């Protein structure tokens, strides 16, 4: 049970929690958080993958994770922006309706 | 890419391009649109003509484009496709002209004409298709392109109609697609090969082929309006008239029928299909549809819906023709494709004209339309008669070949179907014709367009007239080189190759002897059409029969029977014409009388002169139908009821005759062993029996004769009745012994008629009815002698001249008696001429009774020695004289009463007396005329025997004895057995009514359950979809994940 194996299992666990969260959470923010948690999970699996062989560290997964992180943040930003604009739309429509 | 590969493509492309071009023309540029349309139509027609000439002299035209892996888009011009292409090309031209006239100033015409030419383009493509896939492509294109046409008006009714049309055709298209794909997978590329593709392909399992056949036929059946799939046709009558004209006469409906022909012949091959038992299935469905369509048409009041239902039944003729696996039936089916197209398009044009100019949509509103729109209604009548199958016109040709084909394939039930459907056709077309011509206009036209120079816009009038002309021409010149009949025969010969019989025997050739005789009357007939010439023509009418009379007297003719009949007919027609000049002088409806007088004359002379079966039936039908207005002339109530009974019996006789003659021609041509000749002879006997007053079939005679004007009733009983006898002589196989089983009943019927008619006639109170009954009794004698001839075939040589002699005698005597009835006013006692007039009455009466030295005695004597081998016959013959004397005595009593009653002061009219005198003279001296050359003077003397005298005295004794008794007896109604028949008719009508409202209630029940089902399914779907908004898509996704896990890992 090397530490890499432990981490990859943890990564999968995080992925599972994230997926469960996305399916079950009701609020949009929670869904976005869940998606990010899934992302962290996958990245942990990848990084653990890189260290499978204690002697040599495989740099490729690291590059993938780096790109993954940037994409994750981009996706989250867009989702949040849309959420806020929807909320703003509801607010202004409520003001008009009052 | 030379001409032979490009031509089919050009033909298909031309209408499609015209369609697109018209779609692009803006709405207001009507001239450009009109020129485009008509130019396109003409161009396509010329291309088709080129293709036609090419195919005739053997060139092969094929356009082949790669479409799908190992399937090509093939347009192939073979004989069958050309039949349909030329039909649609031709009718497209006329319908375009009609449509331009019809849509004078209505909205979005560009759209209409665009889709119109696209629709024709699709039809031509469909016709030229070389394999089943190309056929399918154009078949579906046709559906798409006809949808906007039906929905053209845009109102709720046409949208609903378009929707139903779509539902049916879409489902049909889907079934066809499945069938074609499945067949393609089984049998590879599906090119149409003339003797059937699947026959030779090895290793195809038959159950699959059967299912595929059912799929294909269901798919095509929708458009061919076979029974369960026909409901869209009547509903889509909401479309404008040109659409329903082209669609239901040519494009859509024919596409289905053409498809069935292609599938049965070029894909399955007829023998292979019949081995699989498929053709029987198709035949049954087609047969049922024919009957169902006609029955439904009966109950429709809307004209276009009635025509729609008649299309439903007519198209199934084609399917029936293909289903009966026989070359002749195929010809019948194929030729009906063209004929039905022509007839139906004429009918729809006329319906469109009525709707457009008078706003008439219902049949009940059509009374008196003939007067307002004579030409359109004439076209309508020709086409309607064609649909019924009246001989010379197109419909008859296809029914004829279908009949013979049915016999060839031993499918006797098909003959039954043909008979019933002709009966039904008559019963839903004749009332319309009656309403048009013979009823007065009882209500103002709903939406009348002001009357122009012509009855309606020339563009609306020309097409129906041309197509009507084509209907007539196709019928009359059926066996000419370029007629559709020869073309279909060519197709059938290519389909059947080896086993194709020579059909020259049953071909319809119209040829009569001494054709020049009919020229003068036909000229007079055409002259009648012009108002100005009408008065002069009426005066010339007596000259019409003279050429025939000269032919009878002067021209040496080896056929004695024809010469004698010709003599009788022409003489009586001449005398009647003279008589009519004065008799009808002050009658207001005399123009109509003279018109039909000439028509009947042509018919009668034609029948006598004709040498061919087809010309015989044609003139026979012409005579019987044109006699109807003569009977109806006085428009009184009894006249109307008499006329209706007369026409009903005529229709019945026509149909029975049709069957009889079909049987006779078939067996004359292809050997008689299969079906006993007895059946054919019975049919012929019944067919001509109606006309010749056979015992139970005579009921129309006593009602019709008294009602008609004197010259007409004279002609009716003297001459027209004899045609039945002529028919028997010509067509009954009197020589051979096989039908002597019929002799017994004939003789019994003959003599019962003679005696019963005499007794019944004696009780009548109207002079003409008495004479009518005397005709019936005299005819009884002829019937009996014919029966005798059947019993002893070898005596026929002797018997024939005797029968002819007797017929001639009866003709002249009865004619002069009828003429005397006309003189009744002049018979008052005390005037110096009355004894002379009484003499004119007594001479024919006494010769009828057969007193010595009279022609009657001579005829009876001839009969006696011809039937000497049977003593009973001659005694009965003598006894018959008693009956005749009874009738004559009663006649004279009535004449005396009338003379006293109408003792008008007017001096006797010479121009009436002269023709009666002439006929009385003819009655005495006819046997000196050339056809009889009686050499032995002593035969006349031999009539002086006692046997000729005692019956007269007994008759006189009975008259005086029963004078008082007869005064007390109530007068029995004129047509004796008619009451029985009418009761029977009422009974069957009641049972039919019960059946009708039984299935009406069933239909209602089905609709109700369907309605509930629909509502229930809607509510279920609403509830389902509420849950199914997948408010838990996540769970669904997870369930899918599980499913995939399972399938992947196990």
């Amino acid at each position, binding site marked *: 049970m090397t530490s890499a194996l432990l981490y990859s299992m943890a990564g999968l666990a995080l992925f599972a929690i994230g997926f469960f969260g996305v399916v079950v959470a009701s609020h949009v923010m929670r869904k976005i958080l869940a998606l990010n948690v899934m992302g962290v999970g996958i990245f942990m699996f990848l990084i653990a993958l890189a260290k499978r062989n204690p002697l*040599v560290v495989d740099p*490729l997964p690291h590059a993938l994770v780096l*790109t993954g992180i940037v994409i994750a943040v981009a996706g989250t930003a*867009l989702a949040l922006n849309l959420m806020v*604009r929807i909320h703003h739309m509801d607010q202004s429509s409520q003001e008009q309706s009052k | 890419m030379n001409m032979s590969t490009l031509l089919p493509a050009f033909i298909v492309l031309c209408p499609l391009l015209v369609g697109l071009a018209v779609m692009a023309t803006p709405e207001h540029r009507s001239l450009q649109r009109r020129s485009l349309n008509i130019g396109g139509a003409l161009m396509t027609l010329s291309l088709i003509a080129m293709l036609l000439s090419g195919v005739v002299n053997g060139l092969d035209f094929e356009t082949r484009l790669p479409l799908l892996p190992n399937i090509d888009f093939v347009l192939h011009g073979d004989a069958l496709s050309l039949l349909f292409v030329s039909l649609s090309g031709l009718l497209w031209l006329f319908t375009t002209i009609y449509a331009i006239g019809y849509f004078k100033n209505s909205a979005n015409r560009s759209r209409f004409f665009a889709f119109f030419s696209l629709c024709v383009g699709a039809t031509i493509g469909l016709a030229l298709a070389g394999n089943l896939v190309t056929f399918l492509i154009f078949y579906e294109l046709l559906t798409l392109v006809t949808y906007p046409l039906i929905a053209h008006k845009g109102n709720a009714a046409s949208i609903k109609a378009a929707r139903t049309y779509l539902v049916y055709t879409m489902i049909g298209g889907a079934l066809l697609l499945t069938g074609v794909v499945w067949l393609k997978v089984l049998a590879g590329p599906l090119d149409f090969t003339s003797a059937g593709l699947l026959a030779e392909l090895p290793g195809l399992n038959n159950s699959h082929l059967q299912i595929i056949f059912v799929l294909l036929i269901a798919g095509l059946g929708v458009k061919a309006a076979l029974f369960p799939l026909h409901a869209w046709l009547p509903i889509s009558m909401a479309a404008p008239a040109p659409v329903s004209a082209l669609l239901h006469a040519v494009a859509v409906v024919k596409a289905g029928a053409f498809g069935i022909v292609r599938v049965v012949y070029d894909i399955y091959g007829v023998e292979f299909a019949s081995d699989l038992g498929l053709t029987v299935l198709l035949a049954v469905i087609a047969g049922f549809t024919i009957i169902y369509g006609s029955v439904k048409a009966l109950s429709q009041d809307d004209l276009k819906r009635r025509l729609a239902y008649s299309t439903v039944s007519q198209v199934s003729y084609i399917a029936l023709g293909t289903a009966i696996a026989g070359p002749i039936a195929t010809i019948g089916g194929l030729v009906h494709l063209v004929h039905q197209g022509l007839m139906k398009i004429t009918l729809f044009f006329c319906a469109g004209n009525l709707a457009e100019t008078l706003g008439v949509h219902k049949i009940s509103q059509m009374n008196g339309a003939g007067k307002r729109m004579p030409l359109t209604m004439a076209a309508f009548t020709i086409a309607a008669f064609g649909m019924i199958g009246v001989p010379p016109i197109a419909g008859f040709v296809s029914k004829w070949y279908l009949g013979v084909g049915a016999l060839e394939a031993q499918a006797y039930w098909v003959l039954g179907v043909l008979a019933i459907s002709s009966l039904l056709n008559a019963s839903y077309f004749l009332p319309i014709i009656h309403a048009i011509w013979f009823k007065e206009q009882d209500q103002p036209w709903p939406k009348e367009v002001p009357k122009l120079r012509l009855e309606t816009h020339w563009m609306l009038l020309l097409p129906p007239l041309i197509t009507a002309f084509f209907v007539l021409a196709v019928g009359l010149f059926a066996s000419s080189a370029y007629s559709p009949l020869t073309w279909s025969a060519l197709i059938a010969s290519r389909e059947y190759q080896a086993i194709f019989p020579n059909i020259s025997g049953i071909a319809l050739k119209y040829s009569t002897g001494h054709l020049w005789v009919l020229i003068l009357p036909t000229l007079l007939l055409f002259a009648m059409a012009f108002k100005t010439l009408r008065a002069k023509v009426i005066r010339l009418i007596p000259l019409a029969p003279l050429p025939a009379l000269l032919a009878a007297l002067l021209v040496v003719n080896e056929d004695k029977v024809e010469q004698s009949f010709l003599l009788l007919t022409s003489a009586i027609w001449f005398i009647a014409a003279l008589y009519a000049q004065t008799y009808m002088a002050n009658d207001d409806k005399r123009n109509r009388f003279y018109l039909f007088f000439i028509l009947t004359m042509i018919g009668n002379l034609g029948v006598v002169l004709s040498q061919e079966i087809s010309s015989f039936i044609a003139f026979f039908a012409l005579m019987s139908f044109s006699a109807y207005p003569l009977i109806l002339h006085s428009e009184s109530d009894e006249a109307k009821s008499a006329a209706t009974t007369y026409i009903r019996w005529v229709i019945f006789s026509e149909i029975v005759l049709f069957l009889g003659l079909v049987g006779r021609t078939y067996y004359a041509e292809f050997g008689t062993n299969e079906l006993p000749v007895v059946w054919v002879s019975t049919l012929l006997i019944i067919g001509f029996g109606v006309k010749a007053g056979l015992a139970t079939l005579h009921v129309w005679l006593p009602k019709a004769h008294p009602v008609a004007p004197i010259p007409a009733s004279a002609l009716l009983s003297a001459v027209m009745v004899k045609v039945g006898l002529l028919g028997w002589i010509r067509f009954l196989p009197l020589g051979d012994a096989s039908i002597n089983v019929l002799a017994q009943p004939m003789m019994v019927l003959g003599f019962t008629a003679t005696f019963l008619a005499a007794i019944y006639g004696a009780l009548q109170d109207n002079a003409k009815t008495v004479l009518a009954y005397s005709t019936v009794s005299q005819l009884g004698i002829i019937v009996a002698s014919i029966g005798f001839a059947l019993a002893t075939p070898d005596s026929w040589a002797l018997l024939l001249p005797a029968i002819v002699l007797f017929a001639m005698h009866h003709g002249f005597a009865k004619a002069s008696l009828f003429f005397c009835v006309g003189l009744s006013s002049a018979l008052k006692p005390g005037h110096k001429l009355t004894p002379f007039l009484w003499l004119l009455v007594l001479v024919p009466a006494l010769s009828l009774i057969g007193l010595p030295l009279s022609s009657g005695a001579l005829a009876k004597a001839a009969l006696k020695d011809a039937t000497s081998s049977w003593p009973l016959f001659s005694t009965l013959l003598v006894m018959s004289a008693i009956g005749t004397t009874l009738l004559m005595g009663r006649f004279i009593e009535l004449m005396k009463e009338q003379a006293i009653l109408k003792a008008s002061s007017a001096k006797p009219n010479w121009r009436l007396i002269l023709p009666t005198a002439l006929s009385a003279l003819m009655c005495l001296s006819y046997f000196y005329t050339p056809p009889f050359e009686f050499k032995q003077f002593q035969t006349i003397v031999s009539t002086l025997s006692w046997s000729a005298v005692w019956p007269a005295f007994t008759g006189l004794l009975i008259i005086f004895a029963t004078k008082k008794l007869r005064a007390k007896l109530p007068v029995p109604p004129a047509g004796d057995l008619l009451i029985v028949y009418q009761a029977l008719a009422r009974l069957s009508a009641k049972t039919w009514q019960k059946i009708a409202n039984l299935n009406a209630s069933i239909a209602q029940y089905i609709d109700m359950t369907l309605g509930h089902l629909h509502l229930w399914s809607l509510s279920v779907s609403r509830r389902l979809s509420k849950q199914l908004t997948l408010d838990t898509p996540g769970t669904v996704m997870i369930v899918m994940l599980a499913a995939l896990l399972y399938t992947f890992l196990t």
Partner: protein
Amino acid sequence: MFNKLDIEYDGPAVDKSALSLIASVLVVGLLLAVTIKIVLSDKGHNTGLAPLITQNIELSGVTNPITAVLLNFRAYDTLLEIAVLLVVVLAILPTRDHHAPFFKRIEVSKQNLVLLALQRWITPAVVIFAGYLLWAGAHQPGGAFQAGALLAGASVLMFQSDTYQVNYTSFMARVLLVLSLVVFITIGTALIWFEGSLLTYPLAFSGLLILLIETCATVSITLALASLYSSFIASENISVTDHKHRTIK
């Protein structure tokens, strides 16, 4: 799952419909068991591409293997990744007011001293450290993305005090945002001309080129991430009536 996207709803965290709860627990457990089984089975390639990368590291012009992979071996991925970032920035940027100046300093009356102090001390340190990170990327852990993110962090700090306003839709901002993608593409396509196929750096200049790309990338990433953040803060692009009352707790 996605049907109820309520934003105001502050109710219980879990979408209570029992069906989805049970099913999801069941299957997620299944998923976990399956994947753990994979991890334990441990078959498969134990070193991945490590040996291959170490062989080619000297050809790549940089010594840090991750930067080599990112900017040389899989340069195409990085290019597309920058494009992704740009897409999101573009989607979020407001479309109005091109004319406002790129950088504006506003004198705000009420100064939050702590914040001001923090800004004054930390921002320069962060900038220097980011520079170092960028430079060290070639041979030690570091690189464009990390430097860019760091600078973005600094800009977040700056925005808190509302003293600086950066207008991301001005021409200058737009050019800077797009700078890295333009540079990357031009270099890539130019290399086709010189070296025969896309993004093959010539041995001599590969180090230099990578550094150039990295710097531009850092600039663009900083601006991109800063604009992402500012879109939530800045009020003008989302006209919210409560502009005046924005108070920070």
